[in-house]
């Protein structure tokens, strides 16, 4: 394994919220897991189980109370370009064009202007936003904004992609389209992806492995490898295999 491959290790991570006039709140309780390079892993669990907090810690946006998170053997201490993040909220900078948004990462890392423009153009095309390079966020639909988010984070070539319910705010139709888009892009350029969702179907459809977490304090209930082949056709969602896996995980989630 090379030093820059994008393998994550979570070692005994707990997260405790200190509250005023109330007992401390343990959100995560001694979580350990390792995520292989270039694998697609989903974290599923009821709301409040700390799955988003865990993801934010991987991004360096929060700090574990105990334990540590390692990216390729190095402790994550703060947000960097190595851990790209896609948020549930709309995060497209509204004062920049699509082009400038997608260029933002490479420009931040000081790549030459022409190189940034080239990378951005390539990713804008790849996410299917041809002809929208000079559009602003307010001129785009929700699904298109998510495409910008994806292009922007991919254009920065992070080692790990962290996604915090990225399609949670979309309608179900757009959501399925975006899942297909994400898979298509991921097949083309494999990266380590950690995907947080509360939707089992979404997790199964996308992932190599699904990790089910318990209600607060969040612990890992089960970590199951998804046996479905790739590439996955959209109608795999209604196959017997898929439904069986879904049923199995569902009872784990609700146990």
């Amino acid at each position, binding site marked *: 394994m090379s030093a820059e491959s994008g393998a994550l290790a979570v070692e005994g991570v707990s997260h405790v919220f200190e509250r005023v006039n109330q007992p401390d709140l343990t959100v995560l309780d001694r979580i350990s897991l390792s995520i292989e390079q270039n694998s697609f892993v989903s974290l599923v669990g009821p709301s409040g189980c700390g799955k988003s907090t865990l993801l934010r810690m991987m*991004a*360096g*946006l929060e700090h574990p109370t105990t334990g540590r998170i390692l990216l390729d053997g190095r402790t994550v201490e*703060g*947000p*960097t*370009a190595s*851990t*790209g*993040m896609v*948020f549930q*909220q*709309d*995060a497209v*900078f*509204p*004062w*920049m064009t699509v082009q400038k948004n997608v260029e*933002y*990462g490479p420009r*931040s*890392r000081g790549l030459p202007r022409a190189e940034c423009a080239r990378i951005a153009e390539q990713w804008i095309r790849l996410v299917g936003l041809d002809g929208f390079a000079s*559009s*602003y*966020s*307010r*001129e785009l639909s929700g699904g298109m904004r998510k495409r910008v988010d994806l292009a*922007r*984070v991919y254009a*920065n070539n*992070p080692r790990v992609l*962290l996604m915090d319910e990225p399609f949670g705010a979309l309608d179900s139709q757009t959501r399925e389209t975006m899942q297909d888009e994400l898979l298509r892009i991921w097949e083309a350029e494999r990266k380590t992806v950690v995907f947080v969702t509360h939707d089992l179907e979404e997790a199964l459809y996308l992932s190599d492995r699904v990790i089910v977490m318990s209600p607060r304090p969040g612990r890992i209930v089960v970590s199951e490898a998804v046996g479905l082949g790739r590439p996955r056709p959209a109608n795999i969602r209604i196959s017997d295999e898929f439904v069986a896996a879904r049923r199995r995980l569902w009872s784990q989630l609700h146990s």
Partner: protein
Amino acid sequence: MARRRSWWVGRRTLLGLSSFGALLIVYSIVSNLPDANQVITPPPQAIFATLVEGVADGTLFSAILASLARVLAGYFLGCTAAIVLGVLMGWFRTFEYLVDPLVEAIRPIPPLAYIPLVIIWVGIDERSRILVIFLASFLTCIVSTVTGIKQVPRVFIEAAQTLGASQMRLFLTIAIPSALPYIFAGLRVALASSWTTLVAAELVAAQDGLGWLLQNGRRFLRTDVVMAGVVVIGVLAFSMDRGLRYLQRRWTRWADVR
């Protein structure tokens, strides 16, 4: 991008102009009535004649120049200071805790209340007038600048951080642009506040300028001069606000909700 209609055409402008026209017509009828007192309510044509006369003999022009210089100097300095300080307050906690109580304590005091103090300290000269306008625009502009920086959505900051932006880049490319609509709102309120303060300052402590023109008109019961002065101030303040609005539209088009 769908082009919006320009501001000078269309139904809306027409309606706005017609209410203005109606006021003019009503005033014109009332002031031209046979038993109207032309000294108290000079008819529009008299006011217009006074304006023309003022332009011709240069008195109006020099009054405008004097006032405009004060407004621009005080306003420009006040807003620059407010934006610099406000941005720092909005971005750095420590700085905010340090300066905020002071600003909050001073802010509710109307700037006009400082006129006597400023006269005592600085005297009745150009500096005192500019200083009052400085205070007025500074205190109005700083509040919205701080608000603007503090409302920067967290998700934008975090998105930029996870894309590898440095603190400086975060500040320049995320915080400032995101706060721009608020800063512009502050600039416009500060401009109105500057004109208010200017006229007040000139009423009590000046030998030239538009406020002084008004005061002089009152003293000699030249209502036409007073009204001409009011019209001129209105036109100037309005055009400056339009100018700001133009820049606001240009630079913060992305924030348009419609």
